[in-house]
């Protein structure tokens, strides 16, 4: 998928980490709707991590099926109806699993790169 680099250099997020990012974001801030999640990920990553914003939604549906998050309708500050997602206990457990997995992989990659 080609995209025009309209502003900063942006990197695609590594495959498989979208769940981790969503879980971590929700864990930090409690309730959020999709737009807020997308914005939050970009802001915190200093606009380095580029999420194709729409792909949040299939991911959120799968997380709903797995029971990691629940959703309920609420109103935004701008008084619009929005679906807010919240982490469940199963979601917190999953976050821990994903974190340790991520760290293991990153650690391994780092070791390979830094090996002389």
């Amino acid at each position: 998928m080609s995209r025009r680099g309209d502003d900063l250099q942006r990197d695609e997020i590594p495959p498989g980490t979208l769940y981790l990012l969503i879980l971590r974001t929700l864990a930090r801030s409690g309730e959020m709707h999709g737009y807020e999640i997308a914005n939050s990920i970009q802001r915190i990553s200093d606009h380095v991590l580029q999420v194709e914003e729409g792909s949040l939604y299939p991911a959120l549906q799968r997380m709903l099926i797995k029971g990691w998050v629940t959703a309920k309708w609420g109103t935004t500050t701008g008084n619009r109806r929005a679906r807010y997602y919240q982490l469940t206990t199963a979601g917190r457990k999953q976050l821990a699993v994903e974190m340790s997995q991520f760290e293991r992989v990153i650690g391994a990659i780092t070791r390979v790169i830094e090996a002389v």
Partner: protein
Amino acid sequence: MNWLREVARRLRMLMHRRQFDADLEEEMQLHLELRQQEHLESGMTADSARAAARRRFGNVTALRETSHMAWGWEWFEHLALDIRHGLRMLRKSPGFTLVAVLTLALGIGANTAIFSVVNGILLRPLPYHAPNRLTVVWEKNSDGTRDNVGYATYLDWKAQNHSFEQLALYASWQPVLQVGEPEQLNGLRVTSNYFRTLGIHPELGHDFLPEEDNPASLRVVILSHSLWGRKFNSDPNIVGKSIAMNATSYIVAGVLSASYESLMNQDPRGGSVEIWRVLGYDVSQPWACRTCHHLVAIGRVRDGVDFAQAKAEMDNISAALMRAYPKEYSAAGVILTPLGEQLLGQASTTLYILLGAVSFVLLVACANLANLLLARSTNREREVAVRSVLGAGRGRIARQLLAENCVLALLGAAVGLIPAYWTPRVLATLGTGDLPRLDAVRLDWRVLVFTASAALLTGIATGLAPVLRLSKIDFQESLKEGSRGSAGGAGRRLRGLLVVSEVALSLTLLVGAGLLLRSLSRLLTVSPGFDASHVLTMRTSVLGQRYSDNTILRQFFADAVERLRTLPGVESAAAASQIPLGGNIDQYGFHAEGKINANPELDESAERYCITPGFLTTLRIPLLRGRDIVLSDTADAPGVILINETTARRIWPGEDPLGKRVKLGGLDHPWLTVIGLVGDIHHVGLDAAPDMQVYIPHAQWPFPDSDMTFVLRTLGPPTAHASAARRTIHSLDATQLFSRVMPLDAYVVLSVQGRRFALVLIGAFATIALLLSVVGVYGVTAYGVAQRTREIGIRRALGAQPSAVLGLLLRQGLLLILAGTVLGVAASVALTRFLASMLFEVTPTDPMTFALVVALLSGAAILACWIPARRAMRVDPMVALRYE
């Protein structure tokens, strides 16, 4: 448990999937709008803000679809779509739908009906605890046949064996219940452990106690649930109450649950067993002897013991008994018949044959429908081609066509269920012979599962032909204007194959039906040895203490016969302990003077008819030599006996039997002199060779029967005299109760009912198959002719003789019929031997039947070819040339 909750979430989504989709739509829309807003605020124009928001979001449609599919229901939604499409297609061609649904309804409906019978009778487990450990234990005769057991033998078996957890006895019993309108019941006398052997506990009250099972104790009975409801208004306090039966009183010990069905029934025409009383035997009683074979033993083998081990042990016990009492047994050893086989074995042969036959009907229906679908698929080539070009994968198209067929098959099944629902009623009207458990035949879940699976299999099987064909089509070609079907050659071959198999299957069914028909017609020409027309029969059993006096008992029957004989319209009348084809077995040892074996148990035995004078005349059984039994053969006169030809031939070959002396049923009985020789009669059935038969005077026999059947030869229709006969006997004793008041020829009809049942069903299946295959042959020929209309026109225009063109058109059809016939004959030769047990004086490969059936089927099929061919010939060649 986690996956369970996940399934629940997925299901919730399925239920509310419109809401789910709307929610998703809304939140995506919100996202886009918020992003657009942000861009606007950063100074973009409205258009570019919207474009940028969309760019960052990605492909909305694809994402929406991915989100939707994440829930895993797309297969379901496709299926729903396919079904809706299928229904729409069927609605568009109502003629085709009607023919297809009716064909399937015939095939599936007939299969459902027969399966419901098989299910009710054979597949449902027997209503006992662990029924596969129950077995009937028989004594063995010297000729290897099985025999009932005597009470003394049973006691030894019971005391000595280690293989059986329980060993019980039963014997039939027909008491008259004197509650409300008196009624003769079908009952059993059983040992006290009978229900414990079967693993049944009364629902109300208690089981028989061992101390109740002796001649001195109270007379206790257990009632069936139906009798309790019918006669006692389901009285919850019935236990312990006394009821009047056989002019004495009995105490109700318990009531069985409604789910209990009694299958132990020695008389298949007597209805189901509704009452049980304890046997109450004592080894000192004369009828408890070792040679008194009138009880049936039923045993439950212990856990860990198999039937072979049990039989080995029982054989040893029996051999030891034979050594101890050499004159009381004819052979050592026992025969075990597992209860399931005993109760259902005979029915299972017939039923499995019927199930096989009816599955042929379904196959013929499938072939016919497949043919129809093939013809239709030619017209649908263009539709399929368009869908394919528009991007539908071949798999998707195939799935859609199959779904359409399954819809069709399910519709057919639904229609077929309607006649299947009436199966029990049809069977009752038709009469099924001795099939047990018919009251349990109904449409239960097992039958519905069978029907649904049969329908889906049919849908897929019939749908495969057109799917295969369409998958070979070159769609580019099909889309061209005015092109004809492109896969014509392959389609024709497939259609030909289907017709060949239809013809072959129908032929096999017709041969089966033909063989059964010839058997039955042969059987009905067998003379029973008596004249069954214009004879009324009515059974009665005298009740009450006063009849325990033999003189009074004999006098009652003598008086009754005398009064019946003088009724207007009655030619002659008599009474007998049994009547031919009545289903009774009453055999006595036949000990001829000078020919008695060292072990009298090895002497031949004969059917015993205890009669009043006039029996031979009334039934028109020919008296060949000597004299008949007359009124002067009284208890004080010398003992006399009549024998049939078979007895004379077997016992006194080449000698004159008249004047010879014989003892009946034991050496302690008085000598009887043979005074007459009579013709053989068929006692067991028209298909069984007559056995030895003897007739003794009721006035003379030391134990006069109390259960007798009156026979009246009438001038008019026999049943017209029934009420006069009843009144006559009631004038002697108003408490008399009658059962089976019916003409004697009804017994003849009943005796062949089982055969007629199989014949009617297989005949019906064969007729359906014949009609379907004739339609199939017609269809193929008509289609072939229609395709060749232009060719016919050219040939005719060029001067071809009509007969030559006709021959050309007929050739294909005739070849198919020939191939089908050859195949069908081969299949019949291979299959009809399974019918052998149901045939009578006809071999399974009877050439006459085969020839007639081949002539019938090929005649009908050739006619089906000829009609469309002939019609094509009548078309004007000019019209034919322009046809397209």
